């Protein structure tokens, strides 16, 4: 019973923009630093130290950016779908902020996954583009992202925009399992997963360790980006509320700027 109450309290807090802003302040820095360290290590490792593939040669190094981009692009879409579901059921304000924050990064990462896939396909399959199960379902993912982006730009009313993009995000998640199982359902050129949670990787450790570092780095980068975008959206939506005022005053006082000119006499 007590736990139930605690959970309920937590759930309500989760919907509060102010609480969200305060708690994520340190998270953003943490994710940012982790992303920088992991990506710097991963890039050098992947480019210069990992051994070349015995069949594909050095073009196989593209995997170290292609796989993380595709993984994070799909995860961000799942995040949008979950946020859409929560937003439709519980009418939480913050979920629409989350959808808006995942959207731009997810879109460019999907495009990046398609681009690096094409660049990898040219020396490996002999063509930039193949109408293959996985490439096509990833292209559908890109169109979903673009569609939701266009939808959000087209609807000026905030509530309607939130509901419409929540619904499309939720419905679009059916595409995610299609992407995942496309390499098994259709007999395709695309190689099957190089990485899975349940099985031991087929690659030697000196090949998959840099991939792990890159995947973690991409996830930390996405965490940093999504949280930063959510925070700036929360700030601009709550621009007139008292806590934002106090927060910005505190910040300029820290920076030693004209704090006296920012004190709101009218409100106290």
């Amino acid at each position, binding site marked *: 019973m007590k736990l139930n109450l605690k959970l309920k309290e937590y759930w309500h807090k989760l919907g509060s923009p102010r609480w969200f802003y305060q708690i994520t302040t340190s998270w953003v820095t943490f994710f940012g630093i982790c992303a920088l360290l992991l990506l710097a290590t991963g890039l050098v490792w992947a480019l210069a*130290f990992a051994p070349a593939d015995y069949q594909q040669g*050095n073009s196989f190094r593209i995997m170290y950016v292609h796989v993380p981009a595709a993984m994070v692009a799909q995860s961000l879409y799942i995040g949008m779908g979950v946020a859409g579901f929560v937003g439709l059921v519980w009418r939480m304000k913050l979920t629409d902020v989350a959808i808006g924050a995942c959207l731009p*990064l997810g879109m460019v990462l999907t495009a*990046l996954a398609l*681009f*690096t896939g094409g*660049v990898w396909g040219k020396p490996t399959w002999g063509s930039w583009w193949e109408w293959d199960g996985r490439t096509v379902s990833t292209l559908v993912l890109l169109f979903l992202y673009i569609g939701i982006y266009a939808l959000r730009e087209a609807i000026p009313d905030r509530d309607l925009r939130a509901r419409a993009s929540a619904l499309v995000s939720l419905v679009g998640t059916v595409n995610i399992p299609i992407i995942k199982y496309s390499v098994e359902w259709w007999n395709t050129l695309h190689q099957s997963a190089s990485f899975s949670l349940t099985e031991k990787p087929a690659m030697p450790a000196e090949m998959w360790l840099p991939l792990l570092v890159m995947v973690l780095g991409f996830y930390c980068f996405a965490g940093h980006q999504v949280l930063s975008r959510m925070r700036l959206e929360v700030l*601009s939506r709550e621009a007139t509320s008292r806590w934002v005022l106090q927060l910005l005053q505190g910040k300029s006082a820290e920076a030693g700027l004209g704090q006296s000119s920012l004190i*709101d006499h009218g409100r106290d």
Partner: protein
Amino acid sequence: MYFDSFDAFLRMGEHGLYVWMAYGATLLVLLSAFFITRSMSRSVEENIRWTILSRQSEQAAGTAQTQRQGNES
């Protein structure tokens, strides 16, 4: 280091063009995402500061005016 020389590192077997294109695009995406988000959050903060300041100066002007009117009457 996997490569024997810096030249070999740049050439990447025969795949230099493809590898560097993919990594270049990745860096471009990551860096531009980072800088765009950063400049957006800065401009949001600036805008709010600006609104607060202008609201205050309006208020100050308002009180000054009512004071003046009070003195005249």
